[in-house]
């Protein structure tokens, strides 16, 4: 694997990774954005507006048809919230030219398609195409309303709103409905033009072999934009809460969801990665071994952390009426981490698991691109060997110290109202 990074235009970093075992190419284009109530729905709309049509493919379905004919090439847009900022990214993937049935250059066609979508969108007179905008906004409004459908995602969203109240991180990825209803096609076009000029841009290409054409095309495209990048920080720790926010809500569902949010400070990403893994994700993990297997309180109980916000969240689904017992059991696992009352081999097993995870990331184009962009968002160059070295060096004392700096800041309970009498066959 060969990795090379260069700045190809003002505030535009391009990282190329070549690995001959890959059969496909992947180009992800990341735009770092500040966000607020009004811009959040615009950012969400851009993921759809810029990937469904373009000036080159204005007719409904034409872009999809072209992607079909390019051997199931793909070009979705997504938003990843990190800290108080957003990473708006577009991920183009396509079959390497070596496998094209008629010897055509899929790479050349895809670069034209991608750059056409981003730089020559389906727009006129300073606004995105009205019909396309109408459909995309309706999709967005439906998506906002559909938050209630996925109970687990709904609970996580409410817990996030409560834990980060008053901070941009509390705004849901799609924004809120009133702001989304107020957005116009002209707003979206204007903000996209601003993004192109001001957002720090991180381009990551993962390829089976060097493709000079890719660097040439990207450099030409971004050099043609009058760039004046503004800095965007993905790190935005929440102010320490003095009291625990406890919110209980009800929904017509058969299971209850429980989410505990802990704040922390002065713990590195390496220490928190291991601490989190000691809680969930392996057979020895405390939440799995004790809350699920020992006490039988839930099927799923997982921990995750955000270094950008310096919080650790634990979530699980439990039988209505057992929320208190589950909360007590989860808190007991945190206490176990703080006192060192866990199997002695647990940290070592978690280190071994993280070594596997780092290796597995190198076995797919998507895994490589994801790992590179995560490193860049954290402000460090992608270096798996250095990362593993830091993980191996973490001591039990560091883990206990970090666990002792966890402070419960919010508890969210979404209580089911029925036990569910399902018995049909």
């Amino acid at each position, binding site marked *: 694997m060969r990795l090379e990074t260069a700045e190809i235009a003002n505030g535009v970093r391009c990282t190329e990774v070549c690995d001959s075992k890959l059969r496909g190419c992947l180009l992800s284009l990341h735009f770092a954005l500040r966000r607020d109530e009004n811009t959040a729905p615009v950012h969400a709309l851009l993921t759809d507006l810029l990937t469904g049509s373009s000036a080159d493919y204005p007719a409904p379905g034409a872009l999809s048809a072209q992607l079909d004919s390019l051997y199931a090439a793909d070009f979705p847009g997504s938003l990843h919230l990190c800290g108080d900022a957003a990473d708006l990214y577009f991920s183009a993937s396509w079959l390497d030219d070596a496998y094209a049935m008629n010897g055509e250059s899929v790479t050349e066609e895809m670069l034209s398609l991608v750059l056409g979508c981003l730089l020559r969108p389906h727009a006129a007179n300073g606004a995105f195409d009205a019909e396309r905008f109408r459909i995309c906004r309706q999709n967005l409004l439906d998506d906002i309303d559909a938050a209630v459908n996925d*109970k687990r995602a709904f609970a996580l969203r409410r817990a996030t709103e409560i834990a980060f109240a008053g901070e941009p991180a509390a705004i849901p990825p799609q924004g809120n409905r009133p702001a989304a209803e107020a957005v116009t096609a002209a707003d979206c076009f204007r903000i996209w033009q601003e993004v192109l000029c001001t957002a720090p841009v991180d381009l990551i290409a993962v390829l089976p072999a060097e493709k000079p054409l890719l660097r040439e095309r990207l450099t030409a495209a971004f050099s043609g934009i009058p760039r004046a990048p503004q800095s965007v920080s993905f790190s935005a720790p929440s102010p320490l809460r003095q009291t625990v926010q406890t919110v209980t809500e009800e929904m017509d569902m058969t299971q209850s969801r429980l989410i505990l949010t802990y704040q922390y400070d002065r713990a590195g990403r390496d220490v928190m990665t291991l601490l989190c893994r000691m809680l969930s994700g392996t057979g020895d993990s405390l939440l799995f071994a004790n809350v699920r297997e020992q006490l039988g309180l839930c099927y799923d109980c997982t921990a995750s952390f955000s270094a950008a916000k310096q919080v650790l969240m634990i979530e699980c689904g439990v039988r209505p009426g057992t929320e208190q017992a589950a909360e007590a059991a989860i808190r007991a696992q945190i206490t176990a981490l703080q006192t060192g009352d866990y199997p002695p081999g647990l940290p070592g097993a978690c280190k071994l698991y993280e070594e*596997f995870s780092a290796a597995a990331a190198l076995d797919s184009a998507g895994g490589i691109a994801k790992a590179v962009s995560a490193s860049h968002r954290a402000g460090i160059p992608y270096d798996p060997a250095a990362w593993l070295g830091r993980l191996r060096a973490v001591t039990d004392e560091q883990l206990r110290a970090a666990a002792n700096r966890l402070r419960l800041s919010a508890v969210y309970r979404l209580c089911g109202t029925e036990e569910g009498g399902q018995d049909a066959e």
Partner: protein
Amino acid sequence: MNILTDPVTGDRCMTVTHKSGLTVCIAEQPDFHTASALLGVRFGSVHRQFTADGRSVSLPAGTAHFLEHKLYDSADGDAVTKFTRLGASDNAYTAFDRTVYYFSAQQRFAEALALLLDFVQRPYFTAESLEKERPIIAQEIHEYSLDSPEDRIFFLLLEGLFHRHPVRCDVAGTLRSIQDITPELLYQCHRAFYHPSNLVLCCAGNLTAEEVLEIADRTVQILPPVQTVTEPVREPETVFRQEVRERMTVSKPQFAVGFKSPPVTGEALLRQTLLGELVLDYIAGPSSPCCQRMLSEGLINDTFSVSAFTGESWFVLMAEGESDAPEAVRDALTAEIARVRREGIDGERFAALKRAAYGDAILSANSPAAAAEAMTDAMLRRLSSPYAVTALLPALTAAEAEALTAERLRPDRVCLAVIDPC
């Protein structure tokens, strides 16, 4: 030993029938950092009635899934913990026609493979451990079957399409059916279905065939043959109900439209499934005029999708999504099918969709885990090769697609399932 080669990518794997009867399929991929192993069993949620060694057995819904959960137990601790200590990432799933246990590892692959083969062959079921497992599985049923509209709409459609086929029951069973599962029943199923001749082991990645076969020799038991006969499913060709509805907390109606048609087996199933997927994409995929028209009219939104759901004893082509007017979506789909039946399939669009399927097939197996999964699927289905898709695709014709449209998308074999908001 048989060496199989992908005609397009040049990928190779070897298949061996082990002396125990176990089918072994291995792809050496030295350029990768990890290796994956999957052990698949031809025992899933639809296998509810069988005769083993002359004894007839009926199973409560969810038995295969329950067995999968409990197989990780042993007298000296659970296998999940042992995998963790080897730095391996393990899991398992139960589907309608199979149960698959798998792991991926970087450093101690050989030890993890020995563990996989060992725990799957050594059941250890106790009444106490089953009692502990019931509430855990009950929560899984709540989370994925009862509170998830996405899962619920799928099973609601199957309940509407099928009269009595066990495919209409949730893989995990019901809160009631899991109460009837006993250690004796699980032992009985293990004896009947977990004989090595009913298992396939597929390994891919940074490994050698020699080490895999050596571990298989060391750990796979040679057992006397077992005569297990699964009762054939007697399912009418008609749909059970043309429309089924229920209510949940959802933002707008969730729907699924399914077309039921007679099942096929073996290579024919693969060919018909591929064709079915192509026809669905042609009729209502993202690049189709029908899909774009429904989007423009606000009948559907971007949750709309089409898929083929097929197995050895069922064949369903379906569309699902959200809509304020599910009946109008069903009508639009049936009208488009009628038009395609009248006017035929456009060769150029069909060729573009075939190119997309070709690209998908090549890209989708480009990692040890994905390659091992593709090999497992092919071996469990008793296909001649895991590379059958890339070999088959060029031979599929528009005329065959037209025939499938006429035979498998019949207007009298359609069911509409809807979950309305409370």
